């Protein structure tokens, strides 16, 4: 169940910094430990930058979600960029098409509890993550 939500644009490097702060605030509100906050914020940084650089810009939806007794933060990164032709390959450690470290997707996946990626060539990419308290 979604308790509240908000949407933020990702159009510039400044926006990447901003959505990171948003993720930190929402995690702090649920009293995440410092380590858990740092994990969520770092995953946010990776995915927001992918949205900006590979996806040509998009949005981040932030939600406070509830599942039984558990609460968490769900983040959805969405763009209408070129999409990812081979998701399996993109999720491999070290795979990059842009001269990065190629650890953004695979690393983020390890930093959160739930990770889902949908992409269609020419249509765009949506990555959804949840970190539970």
């Amino acid at each position, binding site marked *: 169940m979604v308790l509240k939500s908000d949407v933020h644009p990702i159009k510039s*490097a400044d926006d*990447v*910094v901003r959505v*990171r702060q948003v993720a930190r605030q929402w995690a702090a509100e649920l009293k995440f430990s*410092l*380590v858990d*906050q*740092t*994990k969520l*914020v*770092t995953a946010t*940084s*990776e995915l927001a*930058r992918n949205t900006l650089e590979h996806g040509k810009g998009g949005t981040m939806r932030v939600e406070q979600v509830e599942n039984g007794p558990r609460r968490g933060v769900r983040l959805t990164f969405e763009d209408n960029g070129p999409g990812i032709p081979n998701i399996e390959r993109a999720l491999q*450690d070290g795979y990059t098409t842009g001269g*990065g*470290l190629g*650890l*953004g997707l*695979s*690393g*983020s996946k*390890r*930093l959160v509890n739930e990770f889902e990626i949908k992409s269609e060539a020419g249509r765009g990419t949506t990555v959804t993550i949840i970190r539970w308290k």
Partner: protein
Amino acid sequence: MSSVHEVLQKNEGAILSGWLAEMAASTRRSDLMGDTELRQQAAELLRLFAHAARNSSDTTSEAFSATREYLREIAKSRLDQGFTPSETAMFILSLKQPVFNSMRDELESDPTQLVAEIWTVGNALDKLAIQTVDSAVEFRDQVIVRQQQEMLELSTPVVKLWDGVLALPLIGTLDSARTQVVMESLLSAIVETNSQIAIIDITGVPTVDTLVAQHLIKTITAARLMGAECYLSGIRPAIAQTIVHLGIDLADIQTKAKLADAFGLALSRLGKSIVTAKPATNITSKPKDA
């Protein structure tokens, strides 16, 4: 304000050229804005004002919302162009004279009404000017806040800790083009001071993601190529865990939890050691005539 509105509409052309002439004589800044743009702004504001004045004389009312909105835009664009808030206020206030002139011509026969109307329209323009100054100041504050943030990101001095030992205490977010500048300044400081060891301290960096890590690795590799050793310090526990999960390999890099530890390591590499001096109490407790 009904008759004001009539006067404004009937004399729109004359008022507009009177206004432009008024500005040309006093507050015009042709260095900042071209004639065409100024004329467009003036014409649009006059049109909105005349329209609003038909329904109300209260500038905070719904009737004036389009005028207020337009003035906010003007405040913003003029700030970007380099106008001061008072110059922007003068733009609005210099509309008074040509409006008063037209009203005088139209209401010649009724001095009482003339005075009342002039007071009302003057009052309205004053208020709009003040609101616009407020907007301009608000926008300028936003610019200041942004610049402060940028300066924080920039404020990363390379400091010399010891002969041959440099430190770069990084503060703030590290994912912009500025990172490049900061790292380059470290590399050139290494050359200039002929240092053997550089310590990059990331205590003040809130987020270390793969981009930041990549910048750090590149800098450290470049420093090595220049013959200097590079240590990384200030890795907080939460950051250390995150780096591991991301899968970033820092095994080749000498890391220390604290800057002090890295400095200690640097000194021992240079063949220096830190010794505890003879306890101070021995000196002070020594009897004077001993």
